[in-house]
Every structure is written in structure tokens, then in C-alpha cells.
């Protein structure tokens, strides 16, 4: 239309009668307030930059107010004439494009800030390659940091500048938990690969030139205009699909590798009913089927994320195999009670720790130093380094997930000393008072997190170590003494090793040694 239309049908706004005019000078009114006018009856004479002309009434009605006096300058779009009540006679001006515009403007205004796609279409984090903006990459280069080794806390696992800083200050290659990330914008969707073509429905009939469809009934027109499939005629939702997140399980060191501990991906959301084209990255079927109302969503970020990344790396690097055995700890249990009665409370763990140290520490005669090693270097240039000392990592469950405080030179301690050290370490981890150096640098790890329940396990090695011992729950069992079946106690043990470095025989024998020591506790 040639101008704005008031939302009130009784107010006639001054139209733009000349393509881009801003105002008109009212020369004189041709009617008075109170006059009844017919549709198209001349209301006033006005002069514009382009012409001197009359303005006709858009409808029949009775004049209530004339907005302006002879000689006034009136702006286009401002009230010109108001009519009484609802005018009779000819049609009042229909809602025009401008009303539509207002609605559309409101729709546009309602968009959500922060919807910008986190990844370029079709790209999810590839193994080993970091996602980062050019600015951050430059920063990484300046800092001498390998950006691909930095855990990212941004959208989609993107590396942010603060991730670089955290990574650099924590010493680099050995993955440390990054500082918890700042909250990321809520519901940032990862996009689909929008580059694939999907055949769209044709308009109703291909038309030869100059012979379009017959002028249909006005009401039917939208349907006939080539909307062959139902969704074409529907107004769009206008809101993005919320991203459904996979609920994150507890970080157990001995879960099934890979389950729920997805690598760098923030989860590919799938809008129900949205059919992916073949070229799209296939969303995780487990995630797809699990998404439903009532799921508890937790953003997968921060410490959890870091731990997850480390576990992923560990599984990807070391070739895991596990040997399992049980130790008859009836006598050990008796020994424990003796200590307890003497005032020293000891759990089984320090004894296990002592046994482990004696098994693998060279300076106490341990023969299985192969389990106390790490692999250094990469590619063709790798070396196996056996540690001199045993720095024992004790896997500890905390609120923030799994932590592994370290007891340095554990092989130099006796059992009681170990017990104290373990208690301190665990406490420090749980209360988050542990210093950073206390949380890293282990050469072998023991986990009795599963001692609450369960027997055997397939633990995940705490990279870059080559072995981990998981202690199961000590239970009452029938043991054989002097040919007699008696009730005693058994302790399940699962020893996982990196097969690149430790062969099966070594692992089995090492475990046997540990079992033997536990079964002859006087030595501990």
C-alpha cells in the first residue's frame, strides 16, 4: 500500500501519495468536523513536493476529528482524519502489508540470542584435531602450544583462549583436568549438513509461458500455489529445536571403554522426524533412542569432560587386556584385626598397595618393573621407560568424579605409612585441597572404588601408565585349608595392562605374585 494503515480503522493516516514523500502541507479542509462524508468524497486540498491535489475519504462515515489546521504541515503516516465509531458503507481499508510487517517484525524480534551454529555445517570434532577460531589458533601458535592436545571447553569442544592458558600452565602434555569451564550458552545446536539437496515438491503443474493457473477462489489460493506436500503450506515453527543431551554417567575407571564417554563431541542433536540425508554424520543411535521427555540433561563439560577425554585417549592408545585372580585373604583379615585391636585401623587397601610395590619396585626387589613403566615419544620414535620409584596413584571417587591422588615413593613406605598416606591423599582429593602435583605423576594406579560392590572388572589404565589394579569387594567364601572347606575371605583382583609393553605371561605372573603376597601377609 502507499502508506501506513492505522490499527484503528477509524483513524485515517496521511498516505504517501508520491513515492517517498515525508510530509504534505494542508492547504485547506473541504469538510468540517461532524460532517457525514461518502467514500471518496474530497476531504482536503494538500500540496506536496510533487503535486497539489485533493485527498479523498477512504470510506463513508462521520468526521470526528480533523487533525490539523489550514496551513499546517502534516507528516506522512500521522493521523489525518478520525471518524466516528465504525463507519458504514464501503469497505474499510483491509489490513495491509504493513500489519503483516508488524507481525513479522515481532516474529523476528523473538529470535533467540546465541543461536549461531557452533560448528561449521557437517563438521564435528575429528579425532585428534581441535576446533578453534582463527584468533585462538594464532594465540596457540604464539604460545607454542599444540592446539590439538588442548581440551576445549567451548561450544562443540572448541578450544578457547582460556583453555590454552590453562593447558600451558598445567605443564602441557600430560592431561590435567582443566579449570571448570564458564557456562556455555544454553541449547547451542550443532547443525546438520545443510549442503545436501533434497528434492522439493514441484509447484502444482509446470506452466507454459503466459498460461498460468486459472485465477482460483481466493481462499484456496495458497494450497494451489504448488504446495504439493503438507509441510510446505505450514508456517514455520520459528523456534530452534532444543538440544537433547545424553545423561552423563559417573566416571568409573573401569567402565566399558567408550560407553557414554563420548570423545570431543557435544552430542549431535536430532530433531524428531528430521530425516538425515546420507551425507550427514550419523547421530549416535544410542543417543537417538534414549532422547525422551523427562531425561535429566547435564551439560557435558568441565572436569567430567576432561576426564572423559583422558579416558578416551587412554583407551585409544594402550592395548588393554585384563588378567583376573582371587586372593585368599583370610589370614590377612586376621592380621588386620590384630592391628585394629592394637589401635591401628587398617583397611585392605594399604596391604594391597604394599604388595603392589613389592611386586614391581626394583629397589625393594620387585621383579615386575615392567608394569611400572610408561611409553614415551610418538610414531616410530618411542621408548619404554621403566620408573625407578613407584609413585602409586590411588583412584578416588569424589563429587567431581574420579581423581587419582598420588603417593610418591610408595615403595619406600611400610604398610602403616601407606595407610596414612592413602587416607591423606583421598581426603585431599575429596576436599579439593590436594595440590596439583599431588594429583599427577603416578607410575601405577590402584583402584578399589569397586570395592563397594562387584568382583572383577576391566579397568581403564591411567595413561600414560601401563598397568592398573582393580580391587573387588572382599567377601566371605569357602576356602580350602588342609583339605578342609572352611569359611574365609576372598579378594577379587583385576590387573589390566598395556599389551604393547606387557605381555600376558608377565601380567599373569605379576598378579600371581601380588596374590601370593596377600596370602602371606607377614611379609607386608
Amino acid at each position, binding site marked *: 500500500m502507499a502508506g501506513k494503515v492505522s490499527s484503528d480503522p477509524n483513524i485515517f493516516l496521511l498516505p*504517501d501519495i508520491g513515492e517517498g514523500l515525508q510530509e504534505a502541507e494542508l492547504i485547506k479542509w473541504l469538510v468540517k468536523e461532524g460532517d457525514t462524508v461518502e467514500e471518496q468524497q474530497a476531504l482536503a486540498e494538500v500540496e506536496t513536493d510533487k503535486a497539489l491535489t485533493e485527498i479523498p475519504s477512504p470510506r463513508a462515515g462521520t468526521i470526528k476529528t480533523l487533525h490539523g489546521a489550514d496551513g499546517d504541515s502534516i507528516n506522512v503516516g500521522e493521523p489525518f482524519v478520525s471518524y466516528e465509531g465504525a463507519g458504514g458503507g464501503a469497505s474499510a481499508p483491509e489490513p495491509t*502489508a504493513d500489519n503483516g510487517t508488524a507481525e513479522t517484525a515481532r516474529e523476528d524480534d523473538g529470535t533467540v540470542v546465541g543461536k549461531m551454529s557452533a560448528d561449521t555445517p557437517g563438521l564435528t570434532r575429528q579425532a585428534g584435531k581441535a576446533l578453534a577460531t582463527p584468533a585462538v589458533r594464532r594465540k596457540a601458535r604464539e604460545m607454542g602450544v599444540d592446539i590439538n592436545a588442548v581440551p576445549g571447553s567451548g561450544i562443540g569442544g572448541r578450544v578457547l583462549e582460556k583453555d590454552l592458558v590453562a593447558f600451558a600452565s598445567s605443564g602441557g602434555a600430560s592431561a590435567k583436568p582443566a579449570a571448570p569451564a564458564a557456562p556455555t550458552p544454553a541449547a547451542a545446536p550443532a547443525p546438520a549438513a545443510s549442503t545436501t539437496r533434497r528434492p522439493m515438491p514441484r509447484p502444482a503443474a509446470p506452466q507454459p509461458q503466459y498460461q498460468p493457473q486459472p485465477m482460483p477462489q481466493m481462499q484456496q489460493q495458497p494450497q494451489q500455489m504448488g504446495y504439493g506436500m503438507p509441510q510446505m503450506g505450514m508456517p514455520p515453527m520459528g523456534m530452534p529445536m532444543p538440544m537433547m543431551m545424553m545423561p552423563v554417567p559417573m566416571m568409573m575407571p573401569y567402565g566399558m571403554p567408550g560407553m557414554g564417554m563420548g570423545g570431543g563431541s557435544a552430542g549431535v542433536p536430532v530433531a524428531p522426524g528430521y530425516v538425515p540425508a546420507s551425507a550427514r554424520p550419523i547421530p549416535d543411535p544410542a543417543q537417538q533412542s534414549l532422547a525422551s521427555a523427562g531425561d535429566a540433561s547435564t551439560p557435558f563439560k568441565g572436569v567430567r569432560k576432561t576426564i572423559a577425554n583422558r579416558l578416551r585417549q587412554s583407551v585409544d592408545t594402550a592395548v588393554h587386556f585384563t588378567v583376573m585372580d582371587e586372593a585368599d585373604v583370610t589370614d590377612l583379615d586376621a592380621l588386620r584385626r590384630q592391628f585394629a585391636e592394637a589401635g591401628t585401623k587398617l583397611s585392605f587397601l594399604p596391604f594391597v598397595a604394599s604388595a603392589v610395590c613389592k611386586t614391581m619396585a626394583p629397589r625393594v626387589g620387585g621383579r615386575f618393573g615392567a608394569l611400572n613403566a610408561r611409553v614415551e615419544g610418538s610414531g616410530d620414535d618411542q621408548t619404554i621407560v621403566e620408573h625407578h620409584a613407584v609413585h602409586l596413584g590411588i583412584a578416588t571417587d569424589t563429587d567431581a568424579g574420579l581423581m587419582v591422588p598420588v603417593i610418591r615413593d610408595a615403595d619406600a613406605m611400610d604398610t602403616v605409612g601407606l595407610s596414612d598416606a592413602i587416607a591423606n591423599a583421598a581426603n585431599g582429593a575429596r576436599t579439593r585441597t590436594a595440590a596439583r602435583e599431588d594429583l599427577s605423576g603416578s607410575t601405577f594406579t590402584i583402584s578399589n572404588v569397586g570395592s563397594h560392590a562387584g568382583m572383577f572388572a576391566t579397568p581403564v589404565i591411567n595413561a600414560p601408565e601401563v598397568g592398573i589394579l582393580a580391587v573387588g569387594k572382599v567377601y566371605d567364601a569357602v576356602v580350602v585349608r588342609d583339605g578342609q572347606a572352611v569359611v574365609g575371605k576372598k579378594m577379587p583382583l583385576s590387573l589390566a595392562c598395556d599389551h604393547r609393553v606387557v605381555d600376558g605371561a608377565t601380567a599373569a605372573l605379576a598378579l600371581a605374585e601380588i596374590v601370593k603376597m596377600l596370602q602371606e601377609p607377614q611379609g607386608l
Partner: protein
Amino acid sequence: MAELNLVQSINLALAQEMERDDRVMVLGEDVGLNGGVFRVTDGLQKRFGEDRVVDTPLAESGILGTSIGLASNGMLPVPESQFEGFLGPAYDQIVHHAGRMRNRTRGAVTVPLTVRVPVGGGIHAPELHSDSPEAIYSHHVGVKVVMPSTPYDAKGLLLAAIRDPDPVVFFEPKRVYRSYKEHVPEDDYTVEIGEAKVLSEGEDVTVITWGATVFQALAALDELPEDVSVELIDMRTIYPMDEDTIVESVQKTGRCVLVHEAARTAGMGAEIATILQEKCFLHLEAPVQRVTGFDTVMPYYKLENHYLPEAPRIKEAIAQVLAY
């Protein structure tokens, strides 16, 4: 010093230059007696005569073609194409001759003409009265393309264009013709071709545009939260572009939103985004966003507002780019 709108400032520039230089002449359809359909050349024929302000026959090819001849033989013609939709027949003359004559003759024959064209939508005009072809003419060699957004810039750029020894296409955003007034100095000044203008300084994001959308961008800025600091740049010259200003800005802010009415594909936004990618690569914090018309015909006015990139869409693009 008067407050003038765009129509009046261009009128003033033409009058002053025709006074100053006898060689300047205006020609086009309805420019003389009628003063132009938008009244931009109002009063000029009365003042300078029918020889220098010519009502031509209805033929854009004829107007531009004869202007090339006039320019090569000592005159400084300022032809008008009544609307950008009518440039079609003139296109051949502009891009294949005006823009190439200097190169063709190794400088022996040159074409110092300035063609004035109203462009852009938003005034509810009929078909082919609302387009924005600045990308097309920028792509063709030998032609300079400018589009002022304010009365002050219009006078300065027009004088610079008329005095430029090469052909200049002078686009006038008709939506702004009467909608904005400002002080325009009476004295002689020019705005250099190839110089962009920073309208507001900022740290968080750069918004680059030209023509009528400058005002839309300003409206969008008004609606942003206080703590969002936007650097708004009006290109003023489309070709040859002021790369230094935009590069310096985006290196500072790391984020950019480009706005133009013209259709998205192969619009000037694409060219600027590439320049920014080339020269600000390591500074970019987010992909460059384009807010443009669609790859469709500009709708007639019942649907026109859905097409035009106005304040709400610009605001949203800024928000997206900041949240990246």
C-alpha cells in the same frame, strides 16, 4: 548553513558545479522542465537553459551512449537513468564502452561522465523501481561506483565524481531522498572516492553497509544492550573499496556483520567477506555474517518488507555473531 535532504543537497551540488564549470551538463528523461520525477534537478533548466539541461527522448542507451561521446569531446555530462530498473539498455554502453575506452585507446580517449541513478526499495514503488545493482557495476572494470547515504556525503561525492576523470556510477538511495536532513555546507568540498566513513566506534563487532540500510543499522544499534559496542562503517564508495578502514576495524573487533539490500548471491557482501577473510584471518572470532535481500525478485509492496534487511534482522545478526 541550511539543513537539506538528499534531493536538495544533490540539487545544490549540481547547481554549484554547473555554475563553476561550463562543461557540466545534465541530461535525461524529464530532468529539465519537470525537474526530474523526484525533483532532484528542479530549477536547473530555468537557471542554465535548455542546452545544458536536456529533456532527452525516452532511451537509456541513447542517453548513455551520447554521453560517452559528449564526455570524449570536451563536455562533462551528468546523465540520469530515471530508475535503476531502466539501466538495462544503458548497461551495454556503460560497461562495454564507458568503462573500457581509456584502456582501449591507452588513454587517448577518456570518458569523464557521471551517471546518476536512484536505487533501492522501501518506497512502495512499482516493479523495477526498487533494485540495487551496485555489485553488477562494481564487477565490471573501469567504472567507479559510489552510493552516499547522507546529504553531506551526497554533495561531496557528486562533486568528486563529476571532477573524476573516469566514469562514475552515482547511486542515490531513494528511500533516503526526503527522509533525513542535515547541515550541508555551501562552500566547495568533496568527499574522496574510495573513502569509507566510521559512523560509530566500537570494540565488539563491526557492521558494514551503505545506502539506505545505514539508517536501518543505526536503528538496530539503538536497540542493542548498553554494553554492546558496535563499530558502524558506511562504505560510501562501493568500488574501489576502502579496504584499509574495514580491515583495521575487523582486526580490532574480530567480528563482522555485512548488510545490503541487494540479493545475497554474488552481492558486495560476498566480496567484502572474502577480503576480511584474507586480511583478518587470524583475528576472526566468528564467521562473517551477511544480512541481505534474498535471491529472489524484490517483491511488490505487499510483501516488500519481508525482503528488506531492516533493523530486526540486523540486530539479530549482531547478536548471533557476538554469541559465537
